[in-house]
């Protein structure tokens, strides 16, 4: 009972915190990492809601797929930025 509540509260705090972090940190790379944190937190939240399968898929698809895509994109776009910085 209390445990559930505590777990929810904990997860909520982490989720909100990491989400806020994801949209506020300067560096895109950090933002992507923080997004990963919040996605995992959501997966954990699913577990508390008895949606284990969904949680697994969340981790697989989101963290495994989306995050990697984003990471990839960060690398690609950052390189372009860096080049510009160098040239500038």
């Amino acid at each position, binding site marked *: 009972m209390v445990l559930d509540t505590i777990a*929810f509260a904990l997860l*909520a705090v982490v989720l909100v915190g990491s*989400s*806020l972090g994801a949209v*506020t940190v300067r560096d895109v790379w950090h933002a992507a990492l923080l997004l990963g944190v*919040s996605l995992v937190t959501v997966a954990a939240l699913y577990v508390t*809601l008895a949606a284990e399968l969904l949680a697994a898929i969340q981790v697989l698809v989101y963290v495994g797929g989306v995050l990697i895509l*984003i990471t*990839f994109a960060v690398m690609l*776009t950052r390189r372009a930025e860096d080049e510009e910085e160098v040239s500038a």
Partner: protein
Amino acid sequence: MTVPVEWYLVLSAAVFCIGIFGILTRRNALIFLISVELMLNAANINLVAFSHFYGNATGQVFALFTIGLAAAEVAIGIGIILVLTRNFGEADVTLPTEMRW
């Protein structure tokens, strides 16, 4: 279920708002994407929570679709962002303003 379902509602709303906040405040296209992902997740939290609440699987199934489509969206989005970077040199969404008015 001991945690009141409204709490999930509030939590998801918070995440949703954070997503909107991100979209409004950041100019980087990737952050934009990240924010959208957060909003989609907020929806999913709702769906899963109420799926649990109502005891039917509908919400969960739908959440599954959402995850899938979110992934596809990111894929397309990143493609576009890459083209954007190629054409405009930066992944800044405020950069392309040639078409206006």
